[in-house]
């Protein structure tokens, strides 16, 4: 973990804790390994490593009914595997959930296997009317709390997207 990415991970963890989130369910993406480590080592949180992204959706949705503030954290591709779970569980029953994703596929991401996200991620999120809030600069980090509160007000999922530059501490 570099000093810059460590500092950003700490800021994100602070903002997450401040809004009442105490549980993180995650599946790794290369961009968020430092962030996941930060949550796992921070005693303000219970970190749950899940077997697949849908399991995070199921667990966090139940945690809401347990009165627990939580966030599902995953890569952009992981979100795409969750469309069924989100539309069925969270839309059918109107259960709020905050989902943090990486903004894979944006210009600058050299991984060819993530370029489908460049083409379709935004439009898929829009197609199911899921509010999306990008976290692109350090000044955006407080928006995590806004997104969490909005999800609970709306009683539906809200997605926040982290850029690579932010997670590296370069934005």
């Amino acid at each position, binding site marked *: 973990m570099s000093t810059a990415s460590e500092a950003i991970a700490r800021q994100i963890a602070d903002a997450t804790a401040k809004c*009442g989130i105490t*549980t993180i369910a995650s599946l790794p993406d290369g961009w968020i390994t430092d962030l996941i480590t930060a949550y796992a080592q921070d005693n303000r949180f219970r970190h*749950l*490593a*899940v*077997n*697949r992204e*849908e*399991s995070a*959706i*199921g*667990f*966090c*949705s*139940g*945690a*809401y*009914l*347990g*009165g*627990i503030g*939580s966030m599902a954290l995953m890569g952009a591709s992981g979100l795409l595997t969750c469309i*069924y*779970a989100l539309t*069925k*569980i969270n*839309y*059918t*029953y*109107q*259960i709020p959930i905050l989902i943090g994703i990486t903004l894979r596929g944006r210009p600058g991401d050299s991984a060819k296997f993530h370029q489908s996200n460049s083409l379709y991620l935004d439009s898929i999120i829009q197609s199911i009317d899921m509010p999306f809030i990008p976290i692109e600069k350090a000044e955006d980090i407080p928006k995590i709390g806004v997104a969490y*509160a909005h999800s*609970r*007000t709306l*009683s539906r999922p809200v997605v926040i997207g982290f850029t690579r530059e932010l997670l590296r501490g370069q934005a």
Partner: protein
Amino acid sequence: MMRFEDCFRLLHERLKTELIITSAGNTSELWWEISRETERVFYLEASMSLASLFAAGIAYGNPEKTVVAFSGDGAFNMNPGMLFVERQLDLPNLKHFMVSNRCYGSTNELTMPFSHAIDYAGMARAAGLLRVYSIARLEELERQLDDIIKVAGHTFTVLHVEPLGRHAVSPPLDGPEVKFRFGRYLERNGGRPIFDTPLG
């Protein structure tokens, strides 16, 4: 092999105070048919393998309550890794019953061909779960149920049942009604605030 209805009637007779989470298809339909309950039961009909982890989230937030999750073998086959997450959580108040009827009960009981060859209890033990039960007779369920439910510790129980053999109806409840009835029940009965959490 148990009759599905006999199995669920026994469970309904004995599980009077637990929170109940049912999954898509027969488990939701039968629990509704037998109980007509709308308060302590969350009919997660749109579950597709996530009922036990949804239940785990509820159990995690309500450690003083016993939470019973029902899933089917069709759902289990979609996401057997649920066992690894359950093992990691190791919630003492989560009781997972996996109902194996070897068919897709909610879709006209179409046969699930690979289910006959799978040892689900063996899979759970191999995943590191410590308290695993495999029950095919009603008398055995009657005898073991207190141990499964009342002794603290996460349990995974395979219930071997015959296909229902008929169409059953879904609970006539919209999703938000299920959420509010269940959530308000929890709030009234010692659970953490759910809907009344101040948003600032």
